[in-house]
């Protein structure tokens, strides 16, 4: 049994808490940045002020969430050392450059052009402002590229060797960066981020439609979000399936935990629900569909799926959290696809923007993406345990020489501060939503921060609505 102050467990809890908190913001801002770029492009292209109002409302929400993402991300770049110093020492040669590239190619880019995106109205030309939005959006994707590459390497490590000193050394950078699970994880996560944003935006749009406020702007939000639900949500099922097949090949024990399968069998059933019990090594009260698990994973009804008992008990991940998180993720995904189907149906009935029950449903779906993203990460990260680098380095052998009490106290401090920050952030976002996309009466480029030098609009005649 572990003691309550087991430093390894506390270090994991702390890291899980800070990284779960952090991932909520990128999951939203990756999609939001790209969407804002599209909205601004539409505005420049059509001159329709509706797009401008939508942009200027959501860019404020973007600023709040991006700010929270930045500060919670800085924490992580130091926690590799504070919580996992042995890991940092051992794999620094391999993972260090990947994280270094993230800072060099993405963080500076995002941070610098965010300033222009938020405060640059009137200071730069509309085209330059649009470019800043696009650059920020690309920055979020480049950042995702590097960090997901690093994470994927921990899942499917390759292209390295372990020296006599026990340290990891790089052999082939391309193999390290483009490791086996990376392409799947990258696509799955970026699409997840897009869907998260789509459902958050659609929730707000549905709220306005339901209340019959800001109808024009709400149609832009809701319509564009429903396009994502209709076309992208089903695609995500496909990407997720491909990712799952890769996991089945590379990390079969994780898949066994996801499926709640204990015995190796041909024609393995799909366990819909049940209670995975690690004591008795069985999934109790299981509701199963025969042979479907084999069909999904091996594309053959009698294919062999290895069960958890193939691995010694101390080399299996905690089964119940993986099993349940996976079901939550898939369940939310199915609800997203259903939303898309309903939207398509209503669209052909010409009732998409005039259907209160559906708008209520979409309001309920606002946090859907966040729930799916978090549970998806729980599946993949808890599923990698007990290893920190899969099949190579144990989590318990990677922790820092810091006493449990200090990790515990700092965990409490993180919970309090993050709770405060998160609460305030949600409060201000709700206030921004309540205020809504109010058409602003000032000059098209609105308020700005700094007086001299002359504003762009003072030098060039403002083209107002038709500036392209």
């Amino acid at each position: 049994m572990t003691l309550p102050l087991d430093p390894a467990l506390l270090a994991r809890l702390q890291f899980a808490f800070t990284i779960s908190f952090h991932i909520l913001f990128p999951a939203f801002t990756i999609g939001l940045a790209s969407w804002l770029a599209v909205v601004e492009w539409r505005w420049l292209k059509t001159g329709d002020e509706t797009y401008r109002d939508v942009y200027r409302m959501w860019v404020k929400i973007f600023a709040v969430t991006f700010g929270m993402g930045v500060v919670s991300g800085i924490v992580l770049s130091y926690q590799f050392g504070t919580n996992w110093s042995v890991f940092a020492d051992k794999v620094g040669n391999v993972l260090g450059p990947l994280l270094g590239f993230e800072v060099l190619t993405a963080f500076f880019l995002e941070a610098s052009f965010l300033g222009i995106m938020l405060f640059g109205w009137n200071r730069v030309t509309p085209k330059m402002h649009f470019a800043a939005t696009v650059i920020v959006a690309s920055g979020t994707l480049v950042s995702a590229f590097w960090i997901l590459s690093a994470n994927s390497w921990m899942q499917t490590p390759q292209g390295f060797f372990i020296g006599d000193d026990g340290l990891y050394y790089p052999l082939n950078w391309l193999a390290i960066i483009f490791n086996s699970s990376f392409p799947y994880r990258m696509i799955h996560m970026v699409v997840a981020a897009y869907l998260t944003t789509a459902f958050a935006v659609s929730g707000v749009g549905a709220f306005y439609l339901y209340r019959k406020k800001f109808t024009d702007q709400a149609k832009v939000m809701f319509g564009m979000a429903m396009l994502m639900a209709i076309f992208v949500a089903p695609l995500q099922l496909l990407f997720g399936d491909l990712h799952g097949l890769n996991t089945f090949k590379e990390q079969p024990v994780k898949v066994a935990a996801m499926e709640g399968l204990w015995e190796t069998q041909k024609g393995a059933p799909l366990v819909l629900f049940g209670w995975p019990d690690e004591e008795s090594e069985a999934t109790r009260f299981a509701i199963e569909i025969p042979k479907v698990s084999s069909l999904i994973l091996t594309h053959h009804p009698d294919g062999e799926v290895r069960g958890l008992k193939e691995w010694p008990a101390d080399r299996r991940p905690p089964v119940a959290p993986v099993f349940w998180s996976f079901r939550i993720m898939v369940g939310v995904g199915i609800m997203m696809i259903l939303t898309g189907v309903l939207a398509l149906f209503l669209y052909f009935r010409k009732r998409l923007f005039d259907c209160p029950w559906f708008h209520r449903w979409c309001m309920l779906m606002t946090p859907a993406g966040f729930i799916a993203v978090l549970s998806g990460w729980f599946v993949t990260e808890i599923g990698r345990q007990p290893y920190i680098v899969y099949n190579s380095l144990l989590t318990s052998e990677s922790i820092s020489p810091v006493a449990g009490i200090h990790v515990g106290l700092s965990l409490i401090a993180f919970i309090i501060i993050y709770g405060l920050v998160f609460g305030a952030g949600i409060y201000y976002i709700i206030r921004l939503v309540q205020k809504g996309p109010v058409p602003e009466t000032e000059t098209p480029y609105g308020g700005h921060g700094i007086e001299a030098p002359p504003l762009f609009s003072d030098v060039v005649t403002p083209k107002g609505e038709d500036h392209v």
Partner: protein
Amino acid sequence: MFSFEGFIDLPLIWYALIGTAIFLYVLLDGFDLGIGILFPFAPSEKCQDRMMQSIAPFWDGNETWLVMGGGGLFAAFPLAYAILMPAFYIPVILMLLGLILRGVSFEFRFKAHDRSKKRWGYVFHLGSLVATLTQGMILGAFVQGVSVTGRTFSGGAFDWLNAFSVMTGVALVAGYALLGAAWLIMKTEDVTQEWARKCTGYLFWHVALFMGLVSLCMPIMDTRIRELWFDPVNFTFLSVMPVSCMVLFWMVWQDLRNKNEYRPFFLIQGIFLMNYIGIGVSTWPWLVPYRVTFRDAAAAAESQSLLLIGAVIMLPVVLAYTGYCYWIFRGKSSHETSY
């Protein structure tokens, strides 16, 4: 696998690069942390708005240099990163919490009104103060050395806490506040500028005093540093730094009297640079004083080589667009709402 090991001194280049990144962080986030330290003392809320507005477009980019410092240390010198982070566990966590609080205060204060706006102003101050104090304490503890056994930190959780590190913490608070005040002289007008000038004059003496104290303590505390600095040959070269500091201080004083707006900020940056080089010379070649040198801590040559390509291509680009952003937002700050 490629490596530049045979052509260039990789660890030395990376030592210089990480050193530069940390120094850029000190300069850039230094002035915006300084504004947080000065924040509640501003004469009016309008002044506070101007102060915050003057750094709002930059703080995020400035803080990225801290990620560069931490991430770069992890990438180029993983052993040093793995020893120093547990050694400074408590102050690092406190610094991060402080940075979180002040970072979100920007966004929240813009959106808040009346009482809650005031409250976020105090949170901004508190976060900046804690972050600065802990950074100064980490520096103070760093120069005193770190206990290491094998490849891990082997000291106690509170090794970093002593009279000297408390003093360097307070010294850095004064130093950042001075940078912040000089930035405000440059970026504001009227009442705010007048007040900032007064602050600069006041902080000026504190910073000079603390610098004197630190310069006195370090050779007294450590024989290596004493021998290094007071070796007759070295002393001739090294005295350039204290002498130029004095000249810079004198120039700042003149500028304050002549109401020069732009120069003091850059002069004070010069003073910071001289001090930074002084600390670098004193701790050379240690990356974990006085146990692990930067050569011992270096990552594999292949890793340092790969990242060097990235740094050589990207750093000039980063510096160029950082400069572009400062150019876009040049001129005096206003109290108007942001975006």
